[in-house]
């Protein structure tokens, strides 16, 4: 789903920008009175709010109501459901593997592109559109066609593919982070002081890229924990897949699990955006 790919990154950027720009005092009032347009705006925003908040409320009510009154049973029941633990653990493991491979692959690549091949940057920006053009449902068809049997037998095939799905915004996160400081100078300084490539990467670059790496990791994890298409078609029961199957036996816990997964993702996203963005901003000013 395209939204899976571009939305998290856009979302993160959106949250980060808004949390980190001090409110500007728009010291301008139009000669045209504010009155006329205001009513439409209010209506639009109210209807929007209703549309977005009602499902949350409905789901919350459904998940947290037992026999007509509030109860945590729906949430607590999640862990008691059949297969929950296995599914959750599987998703977790996949997220871990995906993240590690992704970092190991993308960090050196991004650094290299910035350092040595700046003219390839446009190409890479375009490359990040590829996973949008090749939707997961199409990708999994191809993967199952060409993958050797040994790989197909393990769920980690999914992890390998998730790296590809996560590639665009891992790259863009790192790209933004690399642009926020003078890469060339820092690398030259480190090497002139005697640092080898690995130590430069570890001691010098990564600390500067901390927030970029963090947001890339969060986006990757969010993607893996929410990925349904490829997992279900590859017939492995990850957490989202489990939610759907479990619906047959207990829709209350499924709804509760959905809500929980969403809320956790949001919280983490917001925390990362606030924390990560701040660091970047302050860091720049201090270094200047």
């Amino acid at each position, binding site marked *: 789903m*395209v939204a899976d790919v571009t939305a998290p990154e856009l979302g993160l950027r959106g949250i980060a920008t808004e949390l980190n720009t001090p409110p500007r005092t728009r010291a301008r009032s139009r000669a045209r009175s504010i009155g006329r347009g205001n009513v439409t705006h209010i209506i639009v925003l109210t209807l929007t709010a209703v549309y977005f908040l009602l499902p949350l409320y409905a789901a919350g009510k459904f998940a947290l109501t037992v026999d007509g009154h509030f109860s945590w049973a729906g949430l607590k029941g999640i862990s008691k459901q059949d297969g929950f633990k296995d599914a959750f653990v599987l998703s977790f493991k996949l997220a871990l593997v995906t993240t590690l491979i992704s970092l190991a692959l993308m960090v050196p690549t991004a650094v290299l592109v910035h350092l040595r091949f700046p003219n390839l940057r446009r190409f890479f920006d375009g490359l990040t559109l590829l996973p949008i053009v090749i939707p997961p449902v199409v990708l999994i068809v191809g993967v199952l066609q060409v993958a050797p049997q040994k790989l197909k037998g393990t769920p980690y095939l999914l992890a390998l593919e998730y790296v590809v799905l996560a590639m665009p915004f891992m790259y863009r996160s790192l790209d933004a982070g690399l642009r926020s400081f003078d890469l060339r100078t820092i690398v030259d300084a480190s090497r002139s002081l005697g640092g080898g490539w690995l130590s430069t990467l570890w001691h010098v670059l990564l600390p500067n890229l901390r927030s970029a790496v963090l947001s890339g990791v969060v986006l990757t994890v969010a993607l893996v924990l929410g990925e349904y298409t490829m997992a279900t078609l590859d017939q492995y029961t990850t957490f989202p897949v489990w939610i759907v199957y479990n619906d047959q036996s207990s829709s209350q816990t499924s709804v509760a699990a959905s809500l929980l997964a969403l809320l956790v993702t949001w919280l983490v996203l917001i925390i990362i955006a606030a924390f990560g963005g701040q660091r970047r901003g302050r860091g720049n000013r201090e270094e200047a």
Partner: protein
Amino acid sequence: MSAVVTDGAPRLARRRPALKGLGAAGGLLPFGAYVTIFLLVPAVAVVVGAFRSPTGQATLHNLHLATQSQYRKGYETSIELSIIASVLPAILGFLIARSIHRAPAESFLRRLVVSLSGVFANFGGVPLAFLFISTVGNTGLLTKWLSDIHFDLYGDTGFNLYGKSGVVLVYLYFQIPLMVLVILPALEGLTPSWREASDNLGGSTLDYWRHVGGPALAPSVLGATLLLFGSAFSAYATAEALTSGTIALTPIQIGAFLNGNVLPGQENVGKALATGMLLIIGAVMVVYVLLQRRAAKWSQT
């Protein structure tokens, strides 16, 4: 690897760090290899497979079937659905973006909406489907409220959460925020002094939008709509969780091939369908990129 020190100052310019030509390109090799193996090879395999019969011979039979009967219906429904699920949120998203862009209480309201948009745009797939089932499903909260006032949501309006109308409704949930996020920067790019210049020269609000704002925004809006189309068209998870395959949508149909519900001799039709998807989305993305370039030109000063 120590620095060469001359006259007490390390001469960085003369030293070439070990990123020499070939070595550097080699550094990109792991990435290139990975993308090739895990992205390009499967994609190519799909396209190639579309032209093969189950026994391995070259054939156009798959493609032929992919444009017939239920698969044709699948494409039509998918495209129809995607158009509605992109044009509608495009309009709504644009209105919302405009509201918060112009709102006087810009600082709080706007930050709230943008942050929430970022969060909601991430919603999708299975959890979202469940949220809507609790709201407007057969036993959903809203459905019950409406029936309490004697309004049968399903009967009176022909709405069906588990059918086309439901899928569109649910897609709006992440499509609208996506539109808001994409179009806000474009609205920001509308320099306020353009509006003032137009006013100053005697133009009304209509004049401004007709001659200045509209044309300047058009590429971005069209591009964003295309992006939304691509997003809706390739969506699988939400539709599947909602409909369990009861309506003919191309991604769902492709998925069905992987579940083994396949007539003998037609195994590769799914790949033909997938190839069709690639073509459609590919074309859409090409136009999108071209529109983005045009939009970038307008916002240069």
